[in-house]
């Protein structure tokens, strides 16, 4: 991964420092309500400006004064872009919260914790040292915990927090182990030194073990199966907290994977681990998502599936796509959560649209047409992604060309042609957008691996086949629906284990049932 030489490392920490101010304000200042939020908004906007200005200054300005902090912080195009993204999303969420939380108790604590999360994320993004990385990541979790338990009298909030805690601490241990192994091998805690060492000497068995530890820690922290339960259950916190979590925190594992790509590339076992965990999560959680009956839980399962896909892309060596996924998913999911209460209006609009199953011919033909479109466009624009990825994209776009099995009589066959036409246009547009985005100067390079790629393609084909059966012969899948509805029992197992290994009181003392007199 490309990084800029830092004339002033301290400058890279400016956004984090700016966000520390509202964090302390929430604690120390007596400001309440609108005044408090106004200060937060100003500082948050300043931090957003800083995330935009700092890379420019570092890139343009030579010979800036200030401590260099070599070996502790580093900033590259990708992490700079991530900092802008997280701060932008955080600012929107903060401004949203300032109106949404009107009349709630505990707003100062909320401002403080929200700023704390953002500050810690900024430190984590620029961390170039194991210790800084581990500490910052742990701080993100600790600050977030306070937001997740904003309503501390809700048992499921506490249970979810407990389960998250368990996964996080385990991940901490794994990261510490990885750090110890790497530090011992390289002789330095600096990550830049680690990349240089790997480039020069390859990965020793100790570094391979370190890579596996990092991969495993990311699996735990990114809410992949089986440690996903908590993220499903944190609907017990205010909506913007969910938006922050799903858009700005849970995906940090992806940032770590992309930054560790120099190491992971040399350790096939770690890549296979990511491919298997990511693919399994994407497929299973994707199916569970389809069975969910409330909007926020559906969105949460969607995040789990999306995180699986993103980790899969890292395992496949498609780092640019993973980075694009991180950015796109953040923006999409932050909006989707904030707009969760639009669900009723959306249902009304969908009822006017009418629900229809897709016809069998369109299910079979759609991937062929989309494959032809993607291939043609790739050839025309000179996009060079692997053939198996072209097919994955073709399968992905196919649902846009599904035509209703029975056209509404009012609209007639004309509507079907329109749908096919507009669907094809959309496919072309999306493909071009993906191709264009692939050329964004993020300073990353793909290192695709064909064997794991074939596995991923097989998995996505299976998913498409499942969707096709669901459209045409849903009763074939009724046993699978039951399993999906039960979340494949993974979280039951995890909860049992979590409460067994680390018993916790997760029910606040309330008199819920009448006493026996």
């Amino acid at each position, binding site marked *: 991964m490309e990084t800029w030489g830092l004339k002033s490392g301290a400058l890279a920490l400016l956004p984090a420092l700016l966000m520390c101010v509202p964090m302390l304000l929430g604690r120390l200042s007596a400001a309440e309500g609108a005044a408090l939020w106004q200060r937060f908004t100003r500082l948050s906007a300043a931090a957003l400006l800083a995330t935009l200005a700092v890379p420019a200054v570092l890139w343009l300005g030579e010979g800036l004064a200030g401590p260099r902090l070599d070996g502790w912080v580093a900033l590259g195009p990708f992490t700079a872009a991530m900092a802008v993204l997280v701060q*932008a999303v955080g600012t929107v969420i903060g401004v949203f919260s*300032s109106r*949404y939380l009107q*009349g709630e108790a505990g707003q100062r604590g909320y401002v403080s914790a929200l700023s704390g999360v953002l500050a810690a994320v900024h430190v984590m993004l620029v961390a170039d040292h194991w210790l800084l990385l581990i500490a910052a990541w742990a701080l993100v979790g600790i600050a977030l915990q306070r937001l997740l338990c904003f309503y501390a009298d809700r*048992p*499921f*909030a506490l249970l979810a927090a407990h389960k998250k805690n368990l996964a996080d601490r385990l991940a901490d241990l794994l990261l510490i182990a990885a750090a110890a192994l790497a530090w011992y091998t390289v002789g330095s805690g600096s990550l830049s030194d680690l990349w240089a060492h790997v480039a020069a000497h390859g990965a020793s068995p100790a570094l391979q073990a370190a890579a596996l530890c990092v991969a495993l820690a990311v699996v735990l922290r990114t809410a992949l199966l089986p440690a996903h339960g908590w993220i499903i*259950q944190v*609907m017990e916190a205010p*909506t913007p907290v969910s938006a922050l979590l799903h858009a700005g925190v849970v995906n940090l594992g992806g940032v770590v994977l992309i930054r560790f790509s120099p190491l992971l590339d040399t350790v096939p076992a770690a890549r296979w681990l990511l491919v298997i965990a990511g693919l399994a999560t*994407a*497929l299973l959680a994707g199916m569970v998502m389809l*069975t969910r009956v*409330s*909007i*926020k839980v559906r969105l949460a399962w969607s995040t789990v*599936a999306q995180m699986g896909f993103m980790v899969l892309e890292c395992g496949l060596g498609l780092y640019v796509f993973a980075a*694009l996924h991180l*950015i*796109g*998913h*953040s923006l*999409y*999911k932050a*909006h989707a959560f*904030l*707009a*969760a209460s639009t*669900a*009723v209006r959306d249902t*009304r*609009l969908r009822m*006017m*649209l009418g629900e229809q199953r897709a016809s069998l011919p369109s299910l079979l033909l759609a991937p062929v047409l989309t494959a032809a479109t993607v291939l043609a466009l790739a050839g025309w624009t000179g996009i060079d992604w692997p053939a198996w990825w072209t097919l994955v994209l073709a399968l992905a*776009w196919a*649902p*846009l060309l599904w035509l209703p099995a029975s056209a*509404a009589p009012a*609209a*007639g066959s*004309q*509507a079907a042609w*329109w*749908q096919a036409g*507009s669907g094809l246009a*959309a496919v072309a547009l999306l*493909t071009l*957008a993906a191709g264009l985005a692939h050329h964004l100067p993020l300073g990353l390079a793909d290192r695709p691996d064909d064997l794991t790629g074939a596995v991923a393609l097989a998995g*996505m084909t299976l*998913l498409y086949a499942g969707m096709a059966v669901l459209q045409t012969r849903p009763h074939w*899948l009724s046993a699978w629906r*039951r399993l999906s*509805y*039960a979340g494949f029992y993974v979280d039951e197992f995890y909860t*049992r284990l979590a409460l067994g290994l680390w*018993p916790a009181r997760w*029910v606040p003392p309330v008199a*819920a*049932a*009448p006493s026996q007199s």
Partner: protein
Amino acid sequence: MQMTTVPESAHPYAPAAPQPGMDDVSAHGVLLDDGRLQQRIDDACTRACSAIAPAWPLDRAIAVNPHWSRIGRSVRAVAARMAVLAGIPVFPSRDYIREAWQSGALSAADLDAARALQPSGGPDAAACIAALEQPAALPRLPLLIDVLDDDPSRHERLSWRQAITHQVSQTCAAYFDEHQADWQPERAGGLYAFWRDTLSHDHGIGVLMGLPDLSRRLHALPADRAQAERWVLERLGLPEHVWADYLESVLLTVNGWASWCAYLGWEAAQRGEQDPHLRDLLAIRLAWGALLLEGKADEAAQRSFATVQAAWARAPLALAQAEDALRIDEVWQAALDARYQRQLALRLGSASSPRALEGAAVRPEVQAAFCIDVRSEPMRRALEAVWPGIRTLGFAGFFGLPIAYTPLATDARRPQLPGLLAPAIEVSDRIEGAGAQTGPAHDLDRAAGAARGRQFAGQRSWRAASRWPGAAFSFVEAAGVSYVGKLARWLRPSRAARARDHLDGLPSRYRALCRPALAGLDLDSRAALAARVLRAMGLERGLAPLVLLVGHGSQSANNAHAAALDCGACCGQTGEVNARALARLLNDAEVRAELVQRGLDLPPDTVFVAGLHNTTTDEIEGFDLDLLPAEAQARWNALAPVFAQAGDQVRRERAPRLGLDPRTGHGELLAQLRRRANDGAQTRPEWGLAGNAAFIIASRARSESAVLDGRTFLHDYDSASDPDGSLLELLMTAPMLVTHWINWQYHASTCAPDHFGSGNKLLHNVVGGRIGVFEGNGGDLRVGLSRQSLHDGERWVHAPVRLTVAIDAPAAAIERVLATHAVVRQLVDHGWLHLWRFDGARLLRYHAGQWQDLPFSDAAVPVASAPTVQ
């Protein structure tokens, strides 16, 4: 079968419905033959189920009194039952009253007035005041699952009651969802079978309940509903006269879903059918008892039975005790009512202005019919103040059209009438230009329908991209960045006008031409309908040249409960379709000719115009103005400054309660309210019907100069033109019930927010796309109003007072309605609302079958010292 006997003498509480054969069972413990037992079980279950009031879905949210099926008892008796059976408060909490008392908002005079209403022997003032220091001591009866939940570690996990509610609720959500899950289950076997199947595949609930071996007990589950019902009533050995009460107590643990099932039952009944779901739900809750009992040793089981039996044997006593303890709360409720009534009486007493009374003889320039909704009152008052040429009247916002509306070229049919009625007439859209038609009318309809079909086809394909998992993965990579714009819009909401969703997908060239119209009625039925509506509205003579029919609608964004702010009389829709369809009907030349034939005195120059009052921004827009003749158009245009000025006055009046500065400039205040209306982060876009407290059925002259603070429903009524009292009967059996439903929804959501309120909006999670909300992850379905709709963060904005209905009609006419309609009689006699009557310049209240002077009508309290309304 074990039966406990209860001496009849210890039975002060008499259930409303007769109890067949109670004596021979409880007194003699006779073993019953199977058929009769089944009959009795059926009766008990039916009675328990009939106690649950329906809850409408979110997209048709209308207000319901959650105690609607309990009005056969006095409020205090219901309060006692709710406390004993479920721990649900009905009266305002003593904390709330104490605060009002200590702050001086409630005065000694209010307390005296309240005590005057009580029969002698009630608590004295000192006892009432002393009682405010502690909550009422109310007994509570346990259910089997509470008694079984007795292991020492029970405080470290969910109580079984909570866990069972959670599990039943999740299952119901999966069963009833039609619009959220893309992968739907098979549910052919009914709700009970579905639950049984779901539970047998649920390995998680046992962990939460501290019962890891739960799945090994499933064989104990009753096979079907009948077995479950029978199991509990036979095995538990409760005396038969408490069966229905026990079952109601069980249903109240899942009151949200029970209310949803009751809604399905209500809908089915309108179609003349029966709905099995509520009985299934009851059976599910009972079967949980069987399951939990399975894990207990025989001895423990017997002990549990004995505890439940002993507790429920004392049920009549407990109810009597609770009813007695609640006398204090009843007095305080009356005091709270009196506080408001004192002002209402004062304001109405000085209201009848000479101008209003003499003005009736002069033909007004404009008449404007508004919905009876409390939010119409400030607007009507403002319009009248701004321009004396306008006369306003109040009528139910569906304008008497019992319709269902289907937008053009869709199947999305929806009712647009009060929930008490079933639609009888269809309304559909017509595309119609103002000038000469360019082709046959139906060609335009077809062309617009096809255009909409194409738009929808494109939308469908775009929606697929984020709906299916494989597509969504790559979709966010390619198109996720486009959400930057959407995210940025949360920063500063726009000032855009209200979105009109029924026009979604129609190209803009058709939007202005798309007009709702009655379908499938011949001239005769149309004229009959028109005549009926005009008579009910009192618009038979003296019509102005311009008659506005103003429906109302709210404007809010990202609001799951938006429909609750729209017109309840239109079943949670805006009044647009009804007003437009009626205006079209009444402007129809054929219908007008027929009406004149029938002897209605409709001036030929009178034109009807449909409008909509936006209750969030207090703007009024007109519809189909392009179809108006030139003079009518000129009249409408002349109204624009009137609307602007009146709207400004109302906005200033509302501003302080919304936390806005009422001194802000005209344009700026409107801009602030428009932004608020489009702000998806705003949990309080407007206050809806909060504060509602009275319903005045009288001519406008009775209230015209009174400032009623947007707390009163106003329906016009002139008893002189209703000699047979049929109109009064209609008003007291339809709009009055609707206002009572609204009043008690606000009351119950305020006094029992955990049970009849939907909780915190910040945690709301829409279930099934439209069924209702969960608060967070799960728990019961939450019905009623959210905390944010009633409370501004510092104090309750709604004061839980009972509705005062003031009618300007002869005593005999009112009493005739009371005598004929048991429901109306119950509402009045059992204290669910107050009934007043205008008697010349006096107001009288109806109490214990007599018309009495108001306890404060001597106006002993000077106006200046009257406490503030809220």
